[in-house]
């Protein structure tokens, strides 16, 4: 369904332009992820876009105010080849209170889903629900598909004026399809009107559309040529065939038609030139195979039996050679080769062919799988084949995505185990440093100092903070006072000593009182330092506690890694099984298709041999006469 993907981009314009106008302050992680999903979506990175949306849902969902997460997710899923879930989301949009533009976009995509499943009436009914409020690009596509449905149903075609068919870049397709439908019905004149409508249109300036438009012009010219041929208007047919670009694939069909128009007009000489040119081209194109037999026929009509016989011989050689090529291709083109081709990076063009030969398979951004072999082109154009190839590529992409996770999970596992070891080592180190015991000691010291400071302040005990010398003098004064008391009790006269002791005590207290604020401040400082040391220890302890606690998170994370690794392996196995089945199926389709071509080549070869034999018989008979 890869061919569908570029068209789905149109959805963006219909539903996502409001993304930027979201209100601001209530946006959260999930809302930003919505914007990121759009960013991936607009660049056609559907897997990344879906992953972002799914994570946003896991993180609380996306508010619908001014946004269309369901419609966007539906569009991304449709583009990513998940039509079932896309359809379910579009249905939800219809059930909800949405704007008419959003509802009509949902109707349109539901119609497209039914169209893809070949459910024509359902598709038509849904397409007809949309239209008034649909974005212009989507409406063009809707109308183009409705015309297609009409053609498919073989309903009488509404007479569309080719000059008034304006469906943007869908117009050339619609005009060509209408022309081809009329031609199939035998209405050649009406068919040519549509072809002419296509030819009047200037090719788009957009590179990809331009190439397609020019290819359609060639097809329209070829179609118009054959319609004239069928009506017997040979000069007009030749004129149309001559306008087809010679260096493009449609030229083969036109050259063949040119020759037949000349033959039909009785001008065998004129038929030689296009058929000779055609017979020089690669035999992998059916018109070239036809030309191999048509050319000797023209020679015969001109009476050049020798040239005709040579041409039959040449055709026989070429057909035999081509049969060998097809047999070689059938031998080589198996599921393993398909897998190699599909596994190549999407951006590169992959050729699978011996050097100098035609490429049997090519991959590029324009198509899921392509070929320059007309044998395979018909098969490759079939949607079932393209869908099968896209499914196989999707399976390979999923496989790669998951396999890329495995080495990362292994690294994360090592990282977690290393982290756990580091934490254990640090905890042991902290234990060794007796951090906890040191903290308890400091706490006791700090409490004692606080109590002492309180007491000193309360009792104004200046001498507590006295320097050692003053403290020694204070002790001496205290001792002298005791001696004085004992002498006084013994009845001795100590009046003079008492006075001197009072003076000394007073001097010492005076000095201590002077120094007291400074010493209290110093003690406070010490206490603050103890507080800081305790705080640091507490912080370290807290860190240890956190480490110990978070260490418990490592085990669940490791368990999640292990669980996801097992899920990956199981999913890769499931993907491999599906992939193998798909590739076998595709290879079988290729084989069946090639076998049919082989049969056709054999048929041509038999006809060539028969015609050559008949010609030789005729020549012999004439010689005997």
């Amino acid at each position, binding site marked *: *369904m890869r061919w569908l993907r570029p068209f789905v981009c149109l959805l*963006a314009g219909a539903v996502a*332009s409001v993304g*930027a106008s979201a209100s601001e*302050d209530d946006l959260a*992680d999930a809302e*930003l992820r919505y*914007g*990121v999903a*759009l*960013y*991936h979506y*607009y660049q056609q990175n559907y897997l990344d876009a879906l*992953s972002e949306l*799914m*994570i946003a849902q896991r993180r609380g969902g996306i508010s619908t105010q001014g946004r269309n997460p369901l419609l966007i997710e539906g569009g991304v899923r449709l583009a990513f*080849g998940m*039509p*079932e*879930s896309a359809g379910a989301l579009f249905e939800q949009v219809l059930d909800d209170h949405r704007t008419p533009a959003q509802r009509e976009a949902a109707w349109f995509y539901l119609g497209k889903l039914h169209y893809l*499943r*070949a459910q024509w009436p359902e598709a038509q009914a849904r397409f007809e629900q949309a239209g008034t409020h649909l974005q212009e690009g989507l409406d063009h596509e809707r109308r183009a598909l409705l015309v297609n449905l009409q053609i498919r149903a073989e309903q009488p075609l509404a007479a569309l004026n080719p000059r008034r068919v304006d469906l943007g870049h869908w117009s050339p*397709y619609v005009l060509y*399809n209408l022309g*081809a439908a009329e*031609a199939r019905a035998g209405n050649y004149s009406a068919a040519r009107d549509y072809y002419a409508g296509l030819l009047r249109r200037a090719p788009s300036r957009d590179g990809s559309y331009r190439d397609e438009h020019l290819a*359609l012009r060639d*097809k329209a010219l*070829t179609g118009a040529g*054959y319609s004239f*041929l*069928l009506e017997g208007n040979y000069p007009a047919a030749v004129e149309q065939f001559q306008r087809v670009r010679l260096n493009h694939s449609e030229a083969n*069909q036109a050259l063949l*038609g040119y020759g*037949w128009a000349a033959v039909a007009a009785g001008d065998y000489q004129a038929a030689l030139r296009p058929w000779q040119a055609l017979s020089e081209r690669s035999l992998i194109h059916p018109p070239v195979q036809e030309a191999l*037999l*048509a050319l000797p*026929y023209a020679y015969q009509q001109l009476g050049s039996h020798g040239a005709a016989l040579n041409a039959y011989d040449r055709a026989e050689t070429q057909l035999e050679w081509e049969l060998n090529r097809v047999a070689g291709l059938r031998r080589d083109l198996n599921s393993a080769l398909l897998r190699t081709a599909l596994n190549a990076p999407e951006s590169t063009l992959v050729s699978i062919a011996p050097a100098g030969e035609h490429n049997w398979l090519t991959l590029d951004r324009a198509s899921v799988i392509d070929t320059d072999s007309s044998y395979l082109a018909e098969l490759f*154009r*079939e949607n*079932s084949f393209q*869908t099968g190839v896209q*499914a196989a590529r*999707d399976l390979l992409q*999923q496989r790669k*995505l998951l396999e890329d*996770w495995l080495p990362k*999970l292994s690294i*994360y596992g090592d990282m*977690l185990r290393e982290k756990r070891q580091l934490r254990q080592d640090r905890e042991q180190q902290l234990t060794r440093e007796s951090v906890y015991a040191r903290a308890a000691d400091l706490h006791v010291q700090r409490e004692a100092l606080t109590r002492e400071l309180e007491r000193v302040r309360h009792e104004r005990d200046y001498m507590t903070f006295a320097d050692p010398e003053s403290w020694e003098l204070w002790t001496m004064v205290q001792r002298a006072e005791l001696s004085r008391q004992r002498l006084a009790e013994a009845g001795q006269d100590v009046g003079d000593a008492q006075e001197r002791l009072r003076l000394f005590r007073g001097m010492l207290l005076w000095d201590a009182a002077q120094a007291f604020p400074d010493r209290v401040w110093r003690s406070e400082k010490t206490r603050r330092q103890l507080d800081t040391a305790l705080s640091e220890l507490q912080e370290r302890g807290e860190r240890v506690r956190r480490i110990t606690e978070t260490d418990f998170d490592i085990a669940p*994370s490791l368990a999640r*890694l292990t669980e*996801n690794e097992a*899920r990956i392996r199981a*999913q890769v196995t*499931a*993907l491999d099984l*599906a992939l193998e089945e798909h590739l076998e199926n595709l290879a079988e389709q290729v084989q069946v298709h090639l076998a049919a071509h082989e049969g056709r080549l054999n048929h041509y070869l038999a006809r060539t041999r028969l*015609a050559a034999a008949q010609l030789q018989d*005729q020549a012999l008979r004439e010689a005997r006469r």
Partner: protein
Amino acid sequence: MTIPLRRGWFTQVARFAFWAVLPLFAFADEAPNLANDLEALKQETLSLNRDLLILEEELLYPASSQVALYLSMDVGEFFELDSVRVLVNGQMLVSELYTAEQVQALYRGGVQRLYVGNLSSGEHEISAFFTGKGPRDQDYKRAAELTVNKRQEPLVLELRIVDSTRTLQPVFDIKEWQLQ
């Protein structure tokens, strides 16, 4: 006389010429069960991928140190973005050159996740430099700055380029999101 090709042959060729484009409007005819199986496989892969992305983010960028930078633009009438450079405290954090595809995605409302990583707690100065083409196709270089305080919750910043219809100039700023 031998006639190697059957009569009416070109009628068949003509019919071939009248089919060709319709397959461009291809119709899917894959077996429904097979398609459903494939979709179920895809869904499982997507769910697994989502779980792995969440786990990876939790392991590599824990909330306490996570920083995420986003870039958004509005219409882009006055500025055509070429590149962005983001510095944290004068040190280069991330730089990006933009392709036309990326710029288009931004114009249309997409938001680019420019960077996810880790940042220590505390104050940091974020500087962003934008270069491109300004009004009248002139080379344009502007900067925006913001001082942020990284706390325990993830730090989410959005670099915004907005057209100012008042000044007809682009406006650049950095917004810090408060995650709920």
